């Protein structure tokens, strides 16, 4: 795939897969306000995913799975529903199976902190579509980060149990952090082309923001080593956890049963 398409798939798949995990909370949140807020975040990410997948398809039609000739399924849906897990380019952090409320809050905090810093720079992308997606996304991600940051603080300072849980969640998720912050060759190439942003360029900012949330919350940053991949390959290379193919079996089931369907 072209660099731009590959880059859009990365950012789009992060959003799509995280949206899926967050929307699993629908009708299951601790109270209605959080149910609504989590649905909002899932909807924002789903919106970002749609734009990014469409951009990937336009940038390089060869990334779009083929379907029977008369299939009316649009590109965004072909990409979402007709790729196997190994063709997804999201970080593993996005796909981990759901934990408790502390886990989803911490996960949103990590993803949104990184993505917001990235999108702020991406507003100056040489690709006008990416720049526009980023501009719209910045407002959304600011809300996601603030929502998650407020809850992280609340849980960290709430009860002993909530503190224990949020610290455990952070410990479980941080090993996946490096996958976001280390530069992947496709990111480097996209940045070199002026279309993308090298995560290295936002590393300090992201670390600073995260450090501030932790510090206000009185939580130490855990000293965890990065979770290994396989021969150096991780989510961005299509090497995922066991959870992703299981998730896709469910999310893709109806679409795949009707490759010529109209919805």
């Amino acid at each position: 795939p072209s660099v731009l398409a590959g880059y859009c798939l990365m950012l789009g798949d992060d959003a799509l897969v995280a949206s899926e995990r967050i929307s699993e909370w629908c009708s299951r949140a601790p109270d209605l306000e959080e149910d609504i807020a989590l649905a909002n975040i899932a909807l924002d990410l789903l919106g970002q995913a749609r734009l990014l997948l469409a951009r990937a398809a336009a940038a390089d039609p060869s990334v779009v799975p083929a379907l029977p000739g008369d299939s009316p399924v649009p590109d965004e849906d072909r990409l979402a529903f007709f790729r196997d897990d190994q063709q997804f380019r999201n970080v593993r952090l996005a796909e981990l199976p759901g934990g408790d409320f502390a886990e989803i809050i911490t996960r949103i905090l990590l993803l949104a902190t990184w993505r917001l810093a990235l999108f702020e720079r991406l507003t100056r992308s040489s690709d006008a579509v990416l720049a526009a997606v980023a501009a719209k996304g910045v407002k959304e991600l600011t809300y996601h980060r603030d929502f998650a940051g407020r809850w992280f603080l609340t849980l960290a300072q709430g009860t002993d149990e909530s503190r224990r849980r949020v610290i455990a969640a952070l410990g479980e998720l941080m090993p996946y952090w490096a996958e976001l912050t280390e530069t992947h060759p496709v990111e480097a190439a996209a940045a070199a082309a002026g279309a993308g942003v090298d995560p290295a360029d936002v590393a300090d900012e992201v670390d600073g923001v995260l450090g501030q949330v932790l510090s206000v919350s009185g939580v130490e940053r855990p000293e965890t080593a990065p979770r290994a991949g396989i021969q150096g390959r991780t989510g961005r290379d299509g090497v995922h956890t066991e959870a992703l193919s299981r998730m896709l079996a469910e999310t893709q089931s109806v679409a795949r049963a009707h490759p010529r369907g109209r919805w």
Partner: protein
Amino acid sequence: AELEAHFEATLAHKDRVEPRDWMPERYRRTLVRQIAQHAHSEIIGMQPEGNWISRAPSLRRKAILLAKVQDEAGHGLYLYSATETLGVTRTELTERLVSGAQKYSSIFNYPTLSYADVGTIGWLVDGAAICNQVPLCRTSFGPYGRAMIRICKEESFHQRQGYELLMTMMRGTDEQRAMVQESVDRFWWPSLMMFGPPDDASPNTAQSMAWGIKTHTNDELRQRFVDMTVPQAEALGVTLPDPELAWNEERAAHDFGEIDWDEFWRVVGGDGPCNAQRVAHRKKAWDDGAWVREAATAFARKQEQQQEAA
């Protein structure tokens, strides 16, 4: 007695009773029960549709469905707020729901078995809900009536979206058309049951109508729904599963077959296909969230103490 006269006068003028106004205790209790039941229905109603969010067959439909289920949470929120003006908290009501002490609309005790059900629920179930609810916009209790205005607006939007999904599927493959028909076959009768038992078996209707909490009888609303829906079914190209359904020139209304009231009472009584599942799901979410609500309360208390200290 003076208070009661003022209350009766308010009803007589079709004015709104407001939370600060005096009201008879039975009126209050009936209202709390009705609004709570309605709020519970919105919250439980998130489940049958929520069942398909993860499997929505297009990203556009996923967004529409997620937003719709989110709206239902919002409706629940307004309605619980209305009960709070009557002095009953959301926590109390949720506990009555998960303990089985309070009910919700029986339609949600039916399962959703295909993606077409998302459309059918929008078309038939939301359609029936709207028939029930539009009159409630003019209900005597102010906060309830105002909540209903907002809810009805959103429900109409949902209904159109549901109908549009079915319409789109009918333009799709043969399998999709069969899915729509099968879904309508399952939901038609339960939708008719949504208007409640026949008038002669609905003892509370008279009092509720006198209080302006209810403005039409069950059978009136049911007839209105049937008459409204038949042409929509034709436009869609589906058959409603009732051989007795026919236009009656004389009554200028549709005749229709007998509802299976035995099934109705079984489902109302707790033995429907999903009663146990729905309440268990809600109870689990509520129980699982207890530590979070406690943390939020503890945090708020600490914040207050810090502010007082400062």
